[in-house]
């Protein structure tokens, strides 16, 4: 694969915490790529290093994290060698994030509209922001009036829609979604996933999707990487991995998580 095909190439990335005997290799020699317009799913148990990998892409990792090697190639540059200012220019405009818990992802003292505007102000100068905000809310099927609502006045599902609106506000090329539906009701999960799938098609968005849920993997992802203790233990085309998992760990994970729609899509049911 050449760089031209991929929007993101993570090569031999290692991120550690702590020193000496206490060293935690949160991400240990990890490589993966996200193709243009494709969705890569990163699956693995809790603590396997999925979030740290995702945050490393724009160096949003906690202060204690040490980058011990590797590269994150995006737009022809190694993200790990960029200055803070350069990274800020890319965050939110070219690479956007959605987090697990929409209820705490918004600043409680500002309205939703204010917070979406914050993104627009930063990366899109010279547009009519009011118009753009209502356009963005339309995009995620929310009424305009919610622009003046505070986060606590909205449901988790509504907030996650707003989060998506905010993430897409500056037409990013890559969306990193860290378990975007884990904190939501099952019925709402489906809506949000459909929305994400629809929008990513519409704007040809590349997505790095982190999840526990093989239902999501089979419905949304083109490729999948399975992580365990900071390492990638299995990777491949989604269909291939789901139909014929090579690694025991992948089989365990598939067995552990019930599918959302076991009947749909013809993928192999992990229940077998």
């Amino acid at each position: 694969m050449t760089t031209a095909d991929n929007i993101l190439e993570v090569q031999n990335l290692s991120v550690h915490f702590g020193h000496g005997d206490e060293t935690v290799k949160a991400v240990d020699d990890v490589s993966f790529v996200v193709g243009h317009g494709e969705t890569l799913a990163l699956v693995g148990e809790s603590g396997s290093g999925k979030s740290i990998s995702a945050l490393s892409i724009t160096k949003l990792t906690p202060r204690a994290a040490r980058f011990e090697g590797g590269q994150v190639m995006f737009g022809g540059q190694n993200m790990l060698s960029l200055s803070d200012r350069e990274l800020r220019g890319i965050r939110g405009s070219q690479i956007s994030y959605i987090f697990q818990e929409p209820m705490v992802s918004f600043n409680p003292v500002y309205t939703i509209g204010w917070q979406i505007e914050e993104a627009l102000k930063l990366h899109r100068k010279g547009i009519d922001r009011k118009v753009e905000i209502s356009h963005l809310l339309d995009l995620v099927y929310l009424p305009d009036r919610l622009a003046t609502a505070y986060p606590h006045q909205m449901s988790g599902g509504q907030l996650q829609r707003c989060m998506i609106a905010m993430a897409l506000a500056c037409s990013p090329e890559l969306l990193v979604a860290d378990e975007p539906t884990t904190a939501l009701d099952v019925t709402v999960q489906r809506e949000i996933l459909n929305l994400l799938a629809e929008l990513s098609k519409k704007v040809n968005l590349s997505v790095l999707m982190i999840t526990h849920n093989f239902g999501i993997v089979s419905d949304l992802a083109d490729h999948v990487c399975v992580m365990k203790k900071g390492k990638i233990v299995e990777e491949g085309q989604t269909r291939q991995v789901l139909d014929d998992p090579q690694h025991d760990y992948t089989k365990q994970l598939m067995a552990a998580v019930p599918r959302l729609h076991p009947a749909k899509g013809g993928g192999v049911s992990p229940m077998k």
Partner: protein
Amino acid sequence: MNMERNQSLWGDAWQRLKKNRIAMACLSLVVLFTVLAVYGEVLYRYHDIKDTTPAYQNTDLDMAFKAPSSKHWMGTDGLGRDVMARLVQGVSIAYKVGIITSLIAIPIGVFFGCIAGYFGGKVDDFVVWLYSTFASMPGLLFILAIAMVVGKGLLGIYLGIGLTTWVGICRLMRGEVIKHKGQTYVLAAQALGLSSGRIIFRHILPNVMHVIIVTFTLRFPAAVGTEVFLSFLGIGVQDQPSWGLMINSARMRLWQGIWWEMTFVTLAVFLLVLAFNLLGDALRDALDPRLND
């Protein structure tokens, strides 16, 4: 553009505050005190320029230590001066000490507390070292040293109290910011590409505003108390009536049954502090959208 953003936060808070009766009563009281403070200041300056004796300095030894009457509603002091006139005049100094020292201490404390909490590491080490150094110096000595440099009077008091009391708010802010830094909304703001300054002062600060407001309201009694002490030591207010001086002189007469000066001054301090505290509480609540549905 900045104004517009402020308006949504503070404008909404104001709408909520207006519905709170107690807050409005306290606000009226604060406004009244403010008017008195301005009046007192103008009066002082006017007589200072004209070189005349203001009413609150009029002595009349025949009238010394008179209990409250229709002529002197709050009685007179040992030199026959009207307690009420002096009390009203004292508002201005209490205000200036409370507010100006806050204007010095709070921005310093908030700034250092925020950057220490947010950036951690070396910045934090430096700030902690700085406030530990300040905290380990006896405050009074520091104030005395400043008074030696800038001379006796109010400027020394402002600088002395202001520069020694930022440590408390700095500690509080540092802790609060550390707490908030770990929250997802801050990570989300970072993921949007916002600068550290903007995240600290636009996103975190409004969430910890209550700490500043409460600190501000609690500073008043402390600042007035320190002013009392400094005036007593002779490095404070010299030629104007201050509540500190009044309490100090009234204290010694209390056993002679001269209760009025002490009573009314204490009452005034109490009302001022109460009004600021209740208003501060209400403002804190009004600034939190979650408490208002």
